[in-house]
């Protein structure tokens, strides 16, 4: 019987799962998995962007009238909030890569706070629409869709719809269906993102992530940036594309 030869095991990281050859392969597989998921997400939001484009072509004046009633300032502030949160998310990944646990935790806390700020501002906007009876459909108790229309030549009242020539209250409702569907799905993704980042924050606190192992931070970041990209398109399409018609 030959002498027992001790098998040289490559010293492996405790986070390396047995079905992966090494940490690099595990990291690459994790990122690829998230990218495949994001492809399905892109098709999901793509369908809604398609619906937006089709109906905007059918009802241009109605869409512009409804769009102009949205609060441009709140929309722009939310865009900046989300871009800033994307930066802090990227910095969180960076901190994990260089093994700075304190900065990782700090960046994650700021990212989550900014995400909640976005949702808070969104809630204010939704409430404005509720007050003005602009939530589409008949299911909102006490506030079925029934917008007040501004008379021509009357002093500006921001609670009333200013209908551009050719626009009707009925077709304006279609804009609000799409607005609430798209921003609602986007907000749901934000809520999920805040939940995911809270879990990442917990494990960062426990010191699980470092230069060798930070896949969860990285792929959560991919998801967060994707949600940011959706908003980068939603903001101009929903808030801006009718503004220049207002004074015509």
């Amino acid at each position, binding site marked *: 019987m030959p002498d027992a030869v001790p098998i040289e095991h490559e010293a492996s990281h405790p986070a390396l799962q047995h079905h992966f050859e090494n940490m690099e392969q595990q990291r690459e597989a994790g990122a690829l998995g998230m990218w495949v998921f994001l492809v399905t997400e*892109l098709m999901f939001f793509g369908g809604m962007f398609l619906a937006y484009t*089709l109906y905007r072509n059918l009802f241009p004046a109605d869409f512009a009238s409804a769009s102009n009633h949205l609060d441009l300032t709140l929309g*722009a502030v939310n865009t900046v909030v989300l871009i800033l949160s*994307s*930066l802090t998310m990227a910095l969180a990944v960076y901190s994990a890569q260089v093994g700075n646990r304190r900065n990782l935790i700090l960046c994650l806390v700021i990212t989550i706070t900014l995400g909640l700020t976005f949702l808070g501002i969104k809630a204010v906007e939704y409430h404005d629409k509720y007050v003005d009876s602009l939530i589409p459909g008949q299911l909102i108790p006490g506030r079925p869709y029934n917008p007040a229309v501004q008379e021509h030549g009357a002093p500006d009242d921001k609670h009333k719809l200013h209908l551009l020539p050719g626009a009707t209250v009925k077709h304006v409702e279609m804009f609000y269906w799409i607005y609430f569907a798209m921003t609602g799905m986007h907000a749901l993704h934000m809520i999920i993102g805040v939940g995911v980042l809270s879990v990442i924050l917990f494990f960062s606190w426990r010191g699980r992530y470092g230069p060798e192992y930070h896949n969860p931070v990285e792929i959560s*970041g*991919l998801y967060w940036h994707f949600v940011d990209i959706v908003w980068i398109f939603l903001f101009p399409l929903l808030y801006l594309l009718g503004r*220049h018609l207002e004074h*015509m």
Partner: protein
Amino acid sequence: MSEHIVSLRVYITIFLALLAGTALTVFAGLRDFPGQLNVIIALTIAVVKATLVVLYFMHVRYSSKLIWVVFTSALFWLVILFAFTFSDYWTRCWLGPC
């Protein structure tokens, strides 16, 4: 292939570019441009901003070919979704009164 760490300077630069893009899109959105130029300007800025996020914040610029293929396939299917739907909507009236 080992992991590429994007420098802080790149992150800050991209962030400032995204802020500038947001300011530019609001600025352009409040002005009248002939024809459909308002839409084209808004979408161009949005595409540039999204590209910056994908390439730098999402590290695609430094990722493997496999990630590139997956990402490009997403755009490819999105183009099919839009192109085939519009080819239907825009040509419905060619065949008869509608």
